[in-house]
């Protein structure tokens, strides 16, 4: 659960409506300022970056739901989180300049899901081989998809 102090910060300073466990949807132009505000308030622990893939449907365009979570370590275990809706052909700013831990986590989401992060220091594949085609955690990617021979 996100701490009430941070939900207040999202509403008062940035005018964003929060979900109690997942945080607000942050528009891409505000991502870096929201992240820096959280870091400055002591949320220095980078918990994770995760993404989910939503393919295009008849009603709406396809998008990635990129979720971040941070923590202020200590007895209260306060968490802060926000999520970003990234269109399938768009990019989202990398947070590796604020939390170093975002480097590997965003590489993993790029590799497995296909989210592209702008200004990332080292956006390479991390889990899959370098010559792998496609991003395996996308919804259309079948488990039996043929691949290059193992090297």
């Amino acid at each position, binding site marked *: 659960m996100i701490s009430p102090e941070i939900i207040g910060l999202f509403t008062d300073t940035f005018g964003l409506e929060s979900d109690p*466990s*997942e945080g607000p949807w942050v528009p891409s132009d505000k991502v870096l300022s929201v992240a820096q505000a959280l870091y400055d*308030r*002591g949320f*220095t*622990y*980078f*918990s*994770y970056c*995760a993404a*989910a*893939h*939503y393919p295009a449907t008849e009603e709406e365009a396809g998008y990635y*739901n990129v*979720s971040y*979570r941070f923590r*202020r*370590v*200590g*007895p*209260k*275990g306060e968490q802060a*989180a926000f999520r970003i809706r990234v269109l399938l052909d768009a990019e989202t700013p990398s947070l590796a300049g604020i*939390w*170093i*831990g975002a*480097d*590997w*986590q965003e590489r*993993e989401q790029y590799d*497995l899901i296909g989210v592209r992060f702008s200004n990332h*220091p*080292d956006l390479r*594949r*991390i*889990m*899959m*081989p370098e010559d792998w085609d496609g991003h*395996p*955690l996308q919804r259309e*990617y079948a*488990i039996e998809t043929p691949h290059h021979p193992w090297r």
Partner: protein
Amino acid sequence: MSVNQAINNGTGDLNLPKAITDLPRSNPYLSVEDYDPEGDLLVMNLGPQHPSTHGVLRVKLWMDGEVCVKAVPYIGYLHRGVEKLCEHRTYVQITPLVDKNDYVSPMTNELAVNIAFENGLGITPPPRAQVIRTIVSEMQRITSHLLAVGTWALDLGGALGGGATAFMHTFRERELLLDCFEELTGARFHYNHHTVGGVRHDIPESWGTHVIKALDVIEGKLDSYEGFLTENQVFKARSVGVGILDPKLGLELGISGPNIRASGVDWDLRRDAPYAAYDRVDVRVATQQTGDCYARYLVRIAEMRESVRIVRVLMKDIPSGPICAVKPVKLPGAVKLPPNLSAYTCIETARGELGTWLVTPPGKKKSAMPYRMKIRPPSLHALSALPWVCPGNNLSDIIAILGSMDPIMGEVDR
């Protein structure tokens, strides 16, 4: 001033050990061209097949003589696509699948995902199940730390009283607890013990006395490990002051568990965000201030002693009653979660914060399979510290650093 006081005072700034945070830090993003070595740089591969990488890990090292100037880890050799498989399994079928992630502590892996499913369903397991879960988690922590200490002492080499001494001793005691798990679940590893709403196997008769007997042996043996490791001059020469992890850097990297507690961060999810039956016991968190390999070893030894104490306290008073909140599941698709849900839950395993980000399918229908399940493994974050910690150390010290971080590659690569 402790970390707790710093937060309560509202300073927001952790009072981290200053001697460590002021040390100069190398920058792994620099290209090797920027270094000015004394001799020629030698590129060396550590792994992927190397006994002390604790799995299939490759680290590319640029060596200036005997000193490392840059280290780049390459992971993914053990990638099995667990997160993709989870999207094609029902909630009941996922439990035995995640057993294989952190293959030296499967009990806590199962607990992490099942807590996430229960959170989505909105059910709470009965008290008896909660206490059984806590007891097996703590026993698993002891077995995991025994393995970590034993294999690490093996990595450090032949000088420690004849090579594999500590390794053989810790594995002998680990076997005692694995026998208890076998008695409880029928398996030595990969138990499939936890289920949605509780546990699958009730405690057999006189299991408690067997566990207490095993713990008595282990507690006595912990003193003997300390006898041949803690004060061993060779062991200290290899580990004191080696691989110092800056706590500020560690927090930004997301390092948790014993690795960050050894750097002076007083934080443990068992105490700070209790799950299962941890609210029934008073968890005393072990910390060290120096942040080196030796401190990480000391924290693990102290955590084993604490786990022994916690199991003893819980064993005294196991509530009676059912062991599962829902009817025993007969069909794999029997557990269905509501749609449009996304939530994060985490527990403290032997390696740190093991989290599950669970997303259920969009739409209006209940579903028996997750839409996306992200497992947040503590070992992956611990490994991401290597490029920062390794430069400036000898090659032999890099082996010590790697072992002291205690990464499990099955969990890193998933």
